[in-house]
């Protein structure tokens, strides 16, 4: 794992209406590797995640203060192109939502928007990213069928392929296995393990076992506050905070 910070969050606070969901969070996400954000439901994990690709502001009455630096540049600075941020920071949501089009067009949706897709390389793009998401062999004969006809597990891998197709440097995963059966979940975990070698992955999960299996680095949130952050080894085996220890032991949360 590279120690250079890829994402640096400084004094981030988020309010939904009058309710404060995140309180003055400052934390660093190192480049490459998987950083797991753990904590009980409603502690602000997803809010933190959605602030990193600026998806938070699409949901109405939200106020955000603080800075988030991506490679040293504040993504909330005035004049920043939101679509560029969202292209660099991909998202794998908790429930797969294929776009209302064919498998083929789902993969190409991003590349087409960003002008990366020409007539002569479209097929290659589709194959490359479906392979990257370990879906190619299952769908190569039916690329033109509607994406929603796939199983939930396949849909989630399609969503991964779709996200990878715009070549993001960061991948945000919001409980990506929550809707999946254990075998499909396993495949997603294996894929993330492979992807972390060349991209920064932020994984929100409330499954501690999953965090233990995958995380290189752990961030623990409790009721909108940052309790502890550090290398997985340290947080899991030798937490600094008493609250972290209690959560990991299953006493709270």
């Amino acid at each position, binding site marked *: 794992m590279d120690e250079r910070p890829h994402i640096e969050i400084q004094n981030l606070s988020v309010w939904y209406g009058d309710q404060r969901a995140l309180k003055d969070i400052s934390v660093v996400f190192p480049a490459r590797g998987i950083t797991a954000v753990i904590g009980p439901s409603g502690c602000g994990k997803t809010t933190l995640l959605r602030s990193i*690709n600026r*998806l938070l502001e*699409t*949901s*109405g009455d939200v106020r955000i203060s603080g800075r988030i630096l991506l490679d040293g540049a504040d993504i909330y600075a005035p004049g920043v192109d939101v*679509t*560029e941020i*969202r*292209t660099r920071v*991909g*998202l794998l*949501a908790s*429930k797969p*939502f*294929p*776009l*209302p*089009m*064919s498998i083929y067009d789902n993969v190409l*949706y*991003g590349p087409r*928007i*960003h002008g990366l897709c020409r007539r002569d390389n479209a097929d290659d793009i589709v194959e490359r990213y479906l392979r990257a998401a370990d879906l190619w062999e299952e769908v190569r004969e039916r690329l033109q069928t*509607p*994406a*929603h006809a796939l199983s939930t597990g396949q849909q989630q891998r399609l*969503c991964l392929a*779709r*996200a990878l197709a*715009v070549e993001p440097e960061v991948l945000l995963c919001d409980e990506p296995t929550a809707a999946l059966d254990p075998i499909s979940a396993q495949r997603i975990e294996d894929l993330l393990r492979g992807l972390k070698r060349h991209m920064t992955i932020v994984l929100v999960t409330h499954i501690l076992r999953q965090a233990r299996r995958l995380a290189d680095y752990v961030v623990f949130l409790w009721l909108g506050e940052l309790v502890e952050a550090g290398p997985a080894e340290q947080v899991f085996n030798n937490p600094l905070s008493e609250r972290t220890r209690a959560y990991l032991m299953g006493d709270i949360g």
Partner: protein
Amino acid sequence: MKRLRRLEEHVFRFLMWLSLLIVLGSLVLIVGTMLWRGLPSLSLAMLTQVPKGGYYLGEEGGILNAIVGSLCLAGGATALALLFSLPVAIYLHGYAGRSRTAHLIRLAMDVLWGVPSIVYGAFGFIIMFWLGLRASLLGGIIALACLELPIMVRGMDEALGTVPSALREASYALGATRFETTLKVLLRQAVAGLLTAVLLAFGRGIGDAASVLFTAGYTDRLPDSLFRPVASLPLAVFFQLATPFPAVQQRAYAAGLVLTVIVLAISVMARWLSRRLTRHVVR
């Protein structure tokens, strides 16, 4: 106590059945009456000829002028209303969100929906007066479009509202703009509902008599110009029913039957089309 609750259950079930019976019964009665009174006088001549001299006294001729006229009126009005209502509906969903503006627009549309069609007719008449237009196809199209607009906007509003926000976010998360998301995801996903809204508006438009009474006028000729009066089926029904001759009155039912069949045919067509278009829709 227990018996009372069971009785309650029976009474409510009975009331629901009764309501269902009344609703279905009136539908059967309406269609039945039209078939019974209209079918005997429905002939090929009626569908293929314009009224000849003395048609309204029971002589030869047909209502082709009204059939073509109504299709032109409602078709034109639906196209015109679509031109304005689709952007409004998209604005409501892609841009305005749950803001005060959006709330006001919805309120305005609900009010417009409730306005009686004769008012649209009168309103259209004033507009035409200002523009120096006489009763004409164009005038009828404008008045009908006003009538159809709120129906279409609200229908589309409902249709777009059923698109899950996570689907929209999936598109945003890939770096798509609002416009791209609207065009490539929102409209595709909602296409069946949008089509239904258009159809509903068309049905309302083609069946409306009051708003075209002053604005489109009536004529025995086929429509040939936007600036000339044009006949319509609802008025054909009205004028024929108003005559004292039973034979002509019978033809009014036949005209009503034609009108119903047109609406039905378009509805079936739209269903077929929407099934083809929704192959990819996420359920």
